[in-house]
């Protein structure tokens, strides 16, 4: 059962363009939604994250939009640069106290930014 669905699978944008990646979740117990960036040969690195009590969070060129009623969230990368070329994963987590948490990841989006 795939609890976090991510689209598109791959995305090609021109330098300076906007990259948009979408995710949808099913489990209403999720209360933390991070986005991770992964370069080849490296582990995922936290990019930006949001909680469901806000509808948008912006950090530099990266913005998360969150729609709680639709159970959807998206990552927008403004002014995309070739250095942004990587695989992006959305994830979701529920927390049951102490150290009891886990991340459920989407399948990833391979972003290519052409110069």
């Amino acid at each position, binding site marked *: 059962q795939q609890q976090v669905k991510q689209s598109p699978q791959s995305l090609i944008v021109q330098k300076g363009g906007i990259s948009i990646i979408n995710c949808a979740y099913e489990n209403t117990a999720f209360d933390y939604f991070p986005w991770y960036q992964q370069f080849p040969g490296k*582990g995922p690195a*936290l990019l930006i994250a949001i909680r469901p009590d806000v509808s948008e969070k912006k950090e530099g060129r990266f913005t998360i939009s969150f729609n709680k009623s639709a159970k959807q969230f998206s990552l927008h990368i403004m002014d995309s640069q070739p250095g942004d070329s990587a695989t992006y994963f959305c994830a979701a*987590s529920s*927390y049951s106290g102490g150290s009891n948490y*886990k*991340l459920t990841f989407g399948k990833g989006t391979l972003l290519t930014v052409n110069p």
Partner: protein
Amino acid sequence: DAGVTQSPTHLIKTRGQQVTLRCSPKSGHDTVSWYQQALGQGPQFIFQYYEEEERQRGNFPDRFSGHQFPNYSSELNVNALLLGDSALYLCASSLTGAREKLFFGSGTQLSVL
């Protein structure tokens, strides 16, 4: 700060063998999680260790087991390897409950022939 370190970086095994992967968490972190990332897929949660005990487990068979040591380092053991166990195995560490500051290592690439 060395971050999360994993060893070895690459490993080749044959079906039926056993393998042990190792992880040293980021300095100050006491919680370690393991994830399996198949080619072209997102990471899948295997289990999480805190205070030397398995706290949560994902949908993985008992062939997958782990251990956490008093210095917070951890091992992932996989018995009776199958071809389908070929994947990148990622270790992630954090401070207790601080999922907002979860750091991943670069992983161990396991190939089962």
